[in-house]
């Protein structure tokens, strides 16, 4: 890559993936956790009796949200633990490159998990989830979730109570994403008319753009002292 900015984004992204590929600790944990959430939902909410499409979409997104916080927490605290965050901040580049690198690696982890959980869910509940619309929603929703998540995780790992803080900070902010993603996924699964779904898709798109832009602008303040 010629552009130093892009090269830095790419370097951070590749580094995270290489570390995960070496240790293989995060993605398997997220996957097992996701399956456990689905199992618990089954028992607690008796999902199968009325496996309506709306419930399916909701259960999937709650699962992704919870599994997502695990990933975010872990990749950011790995940076913090040996002071590696400082190492990144010492590099002569725009700090937003770090943000985008982390954004892409977390997005990759989340998408990998989703790409495995969706067919598994499909099998377990005997619902056909192979639907192009659903994939689009998954992508848009994950982008919004991770965009805010990386920003907040970089803040929460710098606090004393980092174990507990991230979900408390994150969930209220990403609630619009979750609601829109649930609605849009539900719509696609119920084969609703596109005109009914498109407001939700637009909302997701707007959210993604606004929060990526906002994160781009405020990330500097999150990491500086």
């Amino acid at each position, binding site marked *: 890559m010629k552009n130093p900015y892009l090269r830095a984004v790419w370097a951070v992204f590749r580094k995270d993936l290489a570390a995960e590929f070496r240790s293989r*600790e995060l993605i*398997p944990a997220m996957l097992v956790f996701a399956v456990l959430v689905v199992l618990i939902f*089954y*028992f607690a909410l008796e999902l199968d009796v009325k496996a309506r499409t709306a419930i399916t979409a909701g259960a999937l997104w709650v699962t992704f949200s919870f599994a997502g916080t695990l990933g975010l927490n872990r990749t950011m605290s790995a940076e913090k633990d040996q002071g590696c965050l400082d190492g990144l901040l010492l590099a002569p580049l725009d700090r937003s490159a770090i943000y985008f690198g982390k954004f892409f690696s977390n997005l990759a982890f989340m998408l990998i998990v989703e790409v495995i959980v969706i067919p598994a869910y499909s*099998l377990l509940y005997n619902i056909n989830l192979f639907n192009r619309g659903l994939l689009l929603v998954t992508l848009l929703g994950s982008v919004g979730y991770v965009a805010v998540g990386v920003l907040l995780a970089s803040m929460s790992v710098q606090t004393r109570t980092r174990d507990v803080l991230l979900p408390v900070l994150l969930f209220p902010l990403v609630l619009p994403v979750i609601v829109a993603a649930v609605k849009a996924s539900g719509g696609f699964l119920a084969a609703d008319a596109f005109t009914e779904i498109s407001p939700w898709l637009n909302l997701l798109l707007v959210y993604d753009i606004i929060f990526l832009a906002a994160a781009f602008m405020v990330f500097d303040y999150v990491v500086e002292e």
Partner: protein
Amino acid sequence: MSPQPRTLKILNLVSLLLLVASTLLVFFYAPTEKVMGLVQKVFYVHVATAWVGMLGFVVAAVLAVVYLRTKDLKWDAIGLAAVELSLVFFFVAVVLGSIWARPAWGTWWTWEPRLTTAAILGMIYLAYLLLRQGIEDPVRRARFGAIYTILGGLSVPLTFLSIRLFRTIHPVLIGSGGGESMGMTDEMLHTMFFHIAAFTVIFITLFWHRIRLAQYAEKVEQRKLQVMQ
């Protein structure tokens, strides 16, 4: 590399023969089931692999107690071997079960007590592997692994009980016609028991090989340390 002991060589051969024999039994001895036809033949391997999988988990729990008593890492390595091997057989059983469930119950998966317990059991042992992965100190890894297998062993019967209760109070939507009501001929029963026996032997053979592998890994580790010092 020490050569394989005689017994193991014999076991290799016996396992192979048993595998061939059981395959032959499935196709030439056991009658083809009237309703489901050929798919039903998956049944024998399904039952045998599921049984062997369970066996390994029980062995692992016993070895965990032995490890905590003796603190000999050997038992930990054997316990890990049992879990890994069992997970493989277990996975085969689940896949075969699914393949069979599709024509038998019209679905790949249903939340029937045994299947659900199986899923949770699988999760427990995957969690066990993740736990081990997060620990570098081999002694602590062994200790925590042993504790977790014991807790798992305690929890599984309760899980099964809870899911049984869960299911019997609520009506089961699908699959009530399968299972016990299936008429099995004597030939089918013979084939099934033969499979269970054969896979037990195969399991023991593979288990032995896996233990030997662990021993080699241990030796390699020691050599590495010697070189480094």
